[in-house]
């Protein structure tokens, strides 16, 4: 893990809900891979807000790193930010991957945007499900090959059974108000439409608050089955949901 100062060189607004910050960074940071994130802090230093924010890269371009942020936040070109990273592990795909399903449930699909590029380049078909408030995510900038599906608040969409059956691997990220509950709902969708949800198939992309980002604080600890635990900042963000001790289904 390293810490650097980066400058916001340029800001692009996708729509009123999202913006991209183009950050001038060290060469090293171009190595970041989809699934990994950075812990950011705006300068000059104040202690409120206290915790660093998790910033998701969406692309790297020459010496620039582009991250996706809420359009409600106010940034200015020339602003300096402190970045710590990389946090977490790159997404790991199956060797036999053909069709991938990405689900963003009431939270932006930011963790997935960088992955899409690589997946398409490897001729993998990508379906992106935007459910509930995620539907305000603009998709015009996405490659046309991505199939975008809009789902309702309760993760219903037309042809859900087909989409689910067709996917070789699934990554799902959910709103933080009840991360475990929502992950559980996702789990149920897949267990209802398949005899058994296999290992290495359905991954939760967890986004807890990350006080340390490096395995020190246990703040991001996830309970796994058999009393085991996983640190999202070290082993995540993608954790195989078949290993997670999800709350009992209601």
């Amino acid at each position, binding site marked *: *893990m*390293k*810490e*650097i*100062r980066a400058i916001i060189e340029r800001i692009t607004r996708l729509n009123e809900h999202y913006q991209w910050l183009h950050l001038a960074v*060290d060469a*090293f940071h171009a190595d970041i891979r989809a699934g990994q994130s950075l812990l950011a*802090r705006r300068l000059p*230093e*104040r*202690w*409120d*807000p*206290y*915790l*660093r924010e998790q910033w998701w890269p969406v692309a790297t371009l020459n010496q620039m790193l582009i991250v996706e942020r809420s359009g409600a936040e106010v940034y200015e070109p020339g602003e300096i930010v*402190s970045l*710590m990273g990389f946090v977490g592990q790159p997404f790991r795909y199956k060797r036999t991957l053909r069709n991938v399903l990405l689900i963003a449930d009431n939270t932006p699909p930011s963790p997935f945007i960088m992955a899409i590029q690589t997946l398409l380049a490897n001729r993998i078909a990508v379906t992106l499900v935007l459910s509930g408030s995620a539907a305000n995510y603009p998709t015009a900038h996405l490659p046309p090959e991505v199939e975008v599906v809009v789902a309702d608040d309760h993760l219903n969409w037309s042809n859900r059974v087909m989409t689910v059956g067709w996917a070789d691997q699934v990554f799902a990220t959910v709103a*933080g*108000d*009840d*991360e475990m509950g929502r992950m559980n709902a996702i789990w149920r969708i897949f267990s209802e439409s398949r005899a058994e949800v296999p290992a290495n198939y359905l991954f939760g992309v967890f986004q*807890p*608050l990350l*006080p*340390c*980002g*490096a*395995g*020190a*604080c*246990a*703040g*991001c*600890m996830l*309970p796994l089955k058999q*009393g085991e*635990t996983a640190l999202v900042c070290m082993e995540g963000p993608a954790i195989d949901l078949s290993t997670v001790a999800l709350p009992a289904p209601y």
Partner: protein
Amino acid sequence: MAFEITRPGKSSLIVESPVMPMAGILGFGDVYRDLIQYEKLGAFVTAPVSYTPRSPANGQRVVPLDAGLLLHTGLPNPGISKVMGRYRSLWNSLPMPVILHIVATSLEHVRKCASRADAENAVDALEIGLNDDIEPDTAEQMIAAAVRNTEKPVLARIPSQNALELARAVADAGAGAVVACAPPRGVARSPLSGRLVDGRVYGPTIKPVALRLVNQLSRAIDIPIIGAGGIHSQQDARDFMDAGARAVQVDTAVWVQPKLIEYIARDLGGLVVTRTVGALPDEWHPGMGETERKAHEQQQSDADDDSAQNTPR
């Protein structure tokens, strides 16, 4: 420089810089290794360890506060045996003393942990973390039990509640030093789950209360005090020294600004004072680009080699 941070005796603890992380802040010594020059720290305090394994607390554990956070973990750890197995060689390789933090769950467990740690070369001292609502009598017994079962210095970390009485009790029991204070416990509403949760409170605003207690204790007991609680700048650390502390522990500021603990260690370790000209440019430009930093680190590790030879360890 050499700082004796526990009471004098055949097993007192001497450090090069009176600055260390609070228990848990840098995990088991495997955290932020590329980010902080560990060699600059006076000592390394491990994450909390209990005799038996502990699993994490349920429910929301991190609550952002204004200029701070509330954190509740339940002190998950795999128990002292597994911890030693996993980290013994790492701790042996660290250039500074290693202080093993032991959660004072019961008298029996403290005794067993102390004996266990006594046999470990990788451990230079013990820090016993006393519970918030502990009675002075119990605290005295816990520390006495640890002291009887190890030759190594025993530090007692006390809560801010009832700090004066507790400090007297643990000093009587033979503690080598008092760590004052553990971050206070509090209750806050989780913004995510909407529920009230309890945990420890961290942030710059806890410093004034800890600082006052350290000043009080420094007049009341005659063993060294290690000041802790809300240090967020070099000046904060110096304030604790001014108020009577022999050393300091830095807590969650490290997660927000990792380099800070290194700067504090250099500052209080005397490096800043003895080499104001040019030697430590990153003191003044913290977080400059990697390339620049690497170059300076090279320069500096060359420069540091000399001083390292004169140090007691």
